[in-house]
Every structure is written in C-alpha cells, then in structure tokens.
C-alpha cells in the first residue's frame, strides 16, 4: 500500500485468488443438481452382417436414438458429450465395448432429441462371435463443465441380439 504499483499489484493478485475460489464453489454447486435423464434406442434394421476376409465379423445397423438429457445441464455446463456403445460378452473377452455413434450437445435446448442414423463408426468384432449374440446398447454421457469437475454416467438398454446367420 505504499505506492500506486504496490496497491495495484495487491488488488490484482487478491482478485485472481478470489476468482479461483469462486470457480471452485461454482463447480461444487454442480453436486446440488439431481438429473433425471431418459433415453430409448431402437434398432430399426440390420443393414448387413458379414464376415471380413481377416475372419472378423462386421455389422452395420440403423438405429433410432431418442433421449431427453435436459436435466443434466447446469449453469456451469459447457457441453454434453454423448456416445452409444454396444456391449457384449465373448469367450475371449468378458466385456466388449464398441462405440457406434457420438455427438456433442452444446446447449440445453438441443438436449431433447431423436435421430435416425446408421452407426457412425464401424462395428467389428475380435473374432466371429456375433451370430445370434445378445448385446446391450448403452448411452454414455460426459457433462463437461465451464469450470471444475466433469461428471460421467450412462443408461444401459438391454434386449438386443444379432441374427443367427450372415446376410
């Protein structure tokens, strides 16, 4: 406080320290939010189901994904990253997760949606285990904050299965 520069420096450092504490409190306030998301995925069609030359199964499917993720947004949310993964079990791996589609939702208004799409990323198995296999489709989301901790969770939808034969 003994000179202009001294006071200015003190004010700037104190204000930035307080800003850091404010951001921490803002991040903690996200815990007060109790979200209630819902989602539904329908497999409209198995477009094709082939065995690749290397011996791995590959499948292409068309899905109808509808979800209401609006309650996940808080004042401290920058965007929502969501992806759909297929999960199934094989003799070789106890859990296989294959990401089929993803999207970024930038605002609350866009969080209630439905989309009719084929899988964005190829669905290739490690081996040829998919005939007649049952699988789950899970919708995962990552709530990316403006400042602080990122939350991630998922919804598991069961009851899907592949055809018995290639087509």
């Amino acid at each position, binding site marked *: 406080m003994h000179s202009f520069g001294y006071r200015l420096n003190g*004010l700037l450092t104190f204000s930035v320290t*307080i800003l850091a504490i404010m951001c921490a409190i*803002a991040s903690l306030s996200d815990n007060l939010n109790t979200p209630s998301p819902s989602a539904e995925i329908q497999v409209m069609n198995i477009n094709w189901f082939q065995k690749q030359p290397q011996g791995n199964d590959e499948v292409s499917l068309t899905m109808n994904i509808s979800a209401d993720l609006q309650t996940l947004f808080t004042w401290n949310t920058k965007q929502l990253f969501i992806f759909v993964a297929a999960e199934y079990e094989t003799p070789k791996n106890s859990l296989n997760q294959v990401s089929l589609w993803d999207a970024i939702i930038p605002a609350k208004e866009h969080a209630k949606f439905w989309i009719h799409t084929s899988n964005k990323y190829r669905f290739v198995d490690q081996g040829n285990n998919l005939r007649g296999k049952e699988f789950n489709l899970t919708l995962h989301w990552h709530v990316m904050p403006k400042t602080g901790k990122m939350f991630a969770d998922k919804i598991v939808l069961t009851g899907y299965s592949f055809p018995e034969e290639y087509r």
Partner: protein
Amino acid sequence: MDWQGQKLAEQIMQIMLLVFAVIALVAGYVLGSFQMMMIIYAGGVTLTALITVPNWPFFNCHPLNWLDPNEAEKHPKPQVAVSSKKKGTKK
C-alpha cells in the same frame, strides 16, 4: 497517502472484492448464467481498483507534518562521541 490512508485503502479493497465475489456468485447461480457472474465480478474489480488504487485526497486525512528544512538547520543532529585527541565538534 498517509499511514491511516494506506490501512483504509487496503481494508476497503479486501472487503469490496469479497462482497462483489459473493454478489456475483449468488447472482450467477440464481440467474443460471455463468456469464453474469463473470461480468458482475469484473465490474466489481474495476470499481474497487478505481476507488482504492489512485491516491485520492480522502486517504490523506491524517497527514504527517515533516519538519521544515530551515527549522531543521537550527537543531543540529546529535554527533557520535569522539576521542579527546580530535578537535571539538562542529557547530
């Protein structure tokens, strides 16, 4: 500024920043807008800077009265004691 003014400036600065931080947090949370919180806080920092950093007159209410130079010459500074061999102190 004088000493009292410096203390006052520091106290005003700390209190104002804390008050603006609380106002900004509450307003941002209630309005659901992170941007509003940042705007209110930035405005608060600027206002605090304008009030506490420049050398305003109201910070100088208890000025120190330094001794006038002419007066100082009439009262010489005390000299360190010297050995008896040296000449006496100068007036």
